[in-house]
């Protein structure tokens, strides 16, 4: 691959959601094994990339591939607790946008 590819052009699902009121979990799911392997091999899911993207420290980010579902899960702290006074997204369902344009 020479030209850069955006994640949104190769993933089938890019979603964010609460994993409880303290954590945000981002699932990226692919259609085929080749793409899944290529994206992982490209280092796109290094914790530090997501840490930088979401303004948290590296050790707060968990990246867990789940090959059975051709998926990678990234879990990190929410900005505010779900539904608390300062929260902006109770379900955490619209926090995935920065991931769409990750390039590899």
């Amino acid at each position, binding site marked *: 691959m020479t030209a850069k590819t955006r994640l949104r052009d190769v993933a089938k699902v890019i979603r964010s959601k609460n994993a409880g009121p303290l954590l945000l979990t981002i699932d990226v799911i692919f259609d085929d094994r080749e793409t899944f392997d290529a994206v992982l091999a490209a280092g796109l899911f290094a914790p530090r990339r997501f840490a930088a993207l979401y303004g948290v420290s590296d050790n707060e980010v968990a990246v867990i591939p789940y090959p059975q579902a051709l998926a990678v899960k990234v879990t990190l702290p929410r900005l505010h607790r779900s539904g*608390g006074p300062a929260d902006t997204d109770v379900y955490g369902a619209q*926090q995935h946008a920065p991931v769409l344009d990750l390039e590899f």
Partner: protein
Amino acid sequence: MRLMACSGMVGYGFTEDAFRRGLGLGVEMIGCDAGSMDPGPYYLGTATPFVSEMATRRDLRIMLEGARAAGVPMIVGSAGGGGSDAQLAWTRRLIEEIAGEAGLSFRMAVIGAEPDRDFLTERVLAGKTAPLGPIQPLTAGTVGEAARIVAMMGVEPLQAALDGGAEVIVAGRCSDAAIYAALPLMRGHDAGLAWHLGKIVECGAQVIEPRVGQDCIVGTIGDGYFEVEPGHQDKRCTRTRVAAHTLYENPSPSELKEPSGVLDSSDAVFEQVDERTVRVSGSRFHPADRYTVKLEGVRREGVRTVFVAGVRDPVLIGQFEDFARSCRERAGNDVAALGISPDSYRINLRVYGGSAVMGEREPDAGADPNELCVVADVIADDETASRAVLAKVRYSMLHTDFPGRLCISGNLAFPFSPSDMAVGEVFDFSVWHTVELDDPLGPFPIEMMEVR
């Protein structure tokens, strides 16, 4: 054995076609989860359901009539949404009313899940609680000030109720997967498969295609495998959806913590056995050394009032942050003049078109949009103070000058009259911890009764 999850949530609905067909497949229990903390802390704080009574009544009626006709147990978990005592009582009342109207009689177990505060404080002081994620350790103070705290039961209270002959179980806060794992585990089925089956079916039609609303899903557990299929003849379960559901709303894709151990699906195998059925094998369960249940609790933060307004003036949009800052300052002075203490309220100006969704995590500042939506959000001790602060914010935003201002008659476009709206009480999750139990039944009192 075969069982059926009627819907992802009592009140979200299911088709009668799917329900009848599923029941006809010879299911040995039916269940439905009624709870979630996903809609936020308000519902637990106020002990109110987030589905309508009308929808809840409809779903419960079909389930009760079906379960009694088939002579199989019915389990509802996390009654009323939060699974607190008040929400449990609400669900119990609906069930008793439906039974009366439909002429049904049955033995019912009602299981509470709102532990005694003295018990929780004793556990905190004994060092038997732990944070469940990024939150401060639990203290006696946090327990004392919480508006409500529930504990999430495992399979044991449900099994005790089944042992006691319960035909209908209404449980307070309850592990979603436990609703469906309870009976297979009693029958001696493999724990990894029973818990994984519970996890897959608890969200109902999440694993069904086409994805048109909620519906029933049937699970069959056998020797070394389980299978899931839709109740509805025209729908199907796909391998991809079932595998992907293992990930859903869970911090880890391959580990799901339950009170008695951890479901490990890292080696699970998902196979499409026919067009509408998926078979799963290889799930494992690692029993825990200590029995722990999750505690969920909320603290009251005050009362919220809001207004919604648009901004279309490009001169103002170009300097909105500075403008908002000066308005907050002016409103603060005006509020102080009312004798309201500055530490008794919070003003949050949520500017849509200006990073309101992602806040400080927004990576794309972008060009100025042609309009902004401002949601002015005030939280104060009571509604009177909240309204008073919001009115000062409204006045200052409507009439404060800014450099280059030409629109001297007003800075905001209000879509509604009245502009100011009472939202209600605001809560925050202050308890999200585990507590170690000596007895899995301890904080979950079981009341048995004959409904007729």
